[in-house]
């Protein structure tokens, strides 16, 4: 397993993700595929993505692997 990468507001739990690709199709600037693990990871700079889009990605994630939180948290 590679190192988990997370942006300040965005996290993809690699244990839950099943790599459907819904998040990177919806927000290609915020997510990318880790080919080796078959899971999504946040892209560098994902924290600047539209928060509404990130929230939609989290809502639609079939395994609830995506969490979005305020920077202040």
């Amino acid at each position, binding site marked *: 397993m590679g190192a988990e990468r997370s942006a300040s507001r965005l996290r993809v739990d690699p*244990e*839950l*993700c*099943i*790599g*459907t*690709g819904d998040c990177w*199709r919806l927000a290609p600037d915020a997510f990318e595929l880790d080919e080796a*693990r*078959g*899971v999504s990871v946040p892209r560098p700079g994902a924290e600047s993505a539209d928060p509404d889009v990130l929230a*939609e990605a989290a*809502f*639609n994630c*079939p*395994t*609830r692997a995506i969490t979005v939180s305020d920077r202040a948290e």
Partner: protein
Amino acid sequence: MMTDGRLLTTYAATITFDRYEDIRAALFDPNLSRTFDKRGYDEGNIRDGIVSIAHGAVHRARRRIENTQFRADVLRLYERELFPDVMNELLDGLIDTERVDLFPIGELLSVVLAARRAGVEYEPSSLDDLRTLVRLVDAFSQGAAILDAKDPDAVRALVRAAYEEFEQKFVRPAWRTRSEQIARLRRGEIAEDDLPHDILTVLLLHREEPSLELADDKRVVREVATYLQGGTHTSAQTLVNALDLIFERADAAAVLERVTVDTLFSQRVIQETLRLRPTTPKAKRRAEADTEVAGVRIPKDAQVVLDFAAGNRDRAVFGATADEFDPDRQLPPNVSRWGLSFGAGPHQCPGRAVGAGFPVPADFHAADDHVYGLVALELQAVARRGVRPDPDRAPERDLRTARFTRWLHYYVGFERLGSDGGQRLEHRPWGESAQREHHP
């Protein structure tokens, strides 16, 4: 529920959800499993170990490798480069008279690419191969719906025989060639990208990983069959359900005319059809632990019934016109136009974008890389050939199952034999179609 003289399972309670949000919440609850029949049904289970009923870690491990076959670039390749030619060749060959049964044609259209994705050995131009695969898919579909089967024992016997035939005719030859290629990969003679891109290949490539639980050859065969069936059945049923919904309308000709010129509209027709006519109208789950959904306490070992057909018509989500066929309806951005028909949560159908495409943008403008889904293209192709109801022969529902959205025969007529400028048949007005059974 009894079978083979044995009790499949007993339930502590049966709880039904019929509201959209409640069903969605249940689908995400990790305590509600599709592995209903752990205790009395594992031995000889016709669906033993397949991804559809796997739960937890093994399900995640399988989906991670199998989902690679449903990436956007693969979908675009299928939709733009492979499917149009295959579809038109098949339609040109199969629509050879003015009146045909469209349902088996839809199955043939769907199985040709589903078989490729599954990774079986077949000849795409051989109607014999395709018809055999469709026959096997029909058996697997009955197996998938065994909880609603009217004669489960007959279905079980049919499916076991179908697996055997499927393995010998279609899987084993493909298995041999893929094993040879995987061996070459491991010797460093080829790259992973040189391997076939299909489900069987990824299963064989990774089956040594214990987390996949694929040591049993028969389980690999069943997994491949699952993808063949899943990629064929819903698409074929949805094509005829779309036409059935259109034919019920007074403005059917105008709707079909729009379909011919507007692919995104055709896609919306398909997604609206999926909402109103889910191929699986109800799903069931078993509570593996005490849990609570939408304020309802669910005890361990309860059966939970998820009424997709009702949830898809929930007025709180789809508005006062929820029962109506309206491909142009506006929906909140977080609601799928197909409702819950592909499920939600971890078991959401992996191939939903193959048949139904990507979500339709709210402004009804598709980006250049949009995927419309194969069934929208099929509907457009038959609309361009002037499809209309057969006035003399009524469609026939599949009465082997209680699932009300399934057809066995759907008779239609065509005004043209080719897609564009093909031979024009004698024009007949739409007239009165044969009596069709009305679906709720």
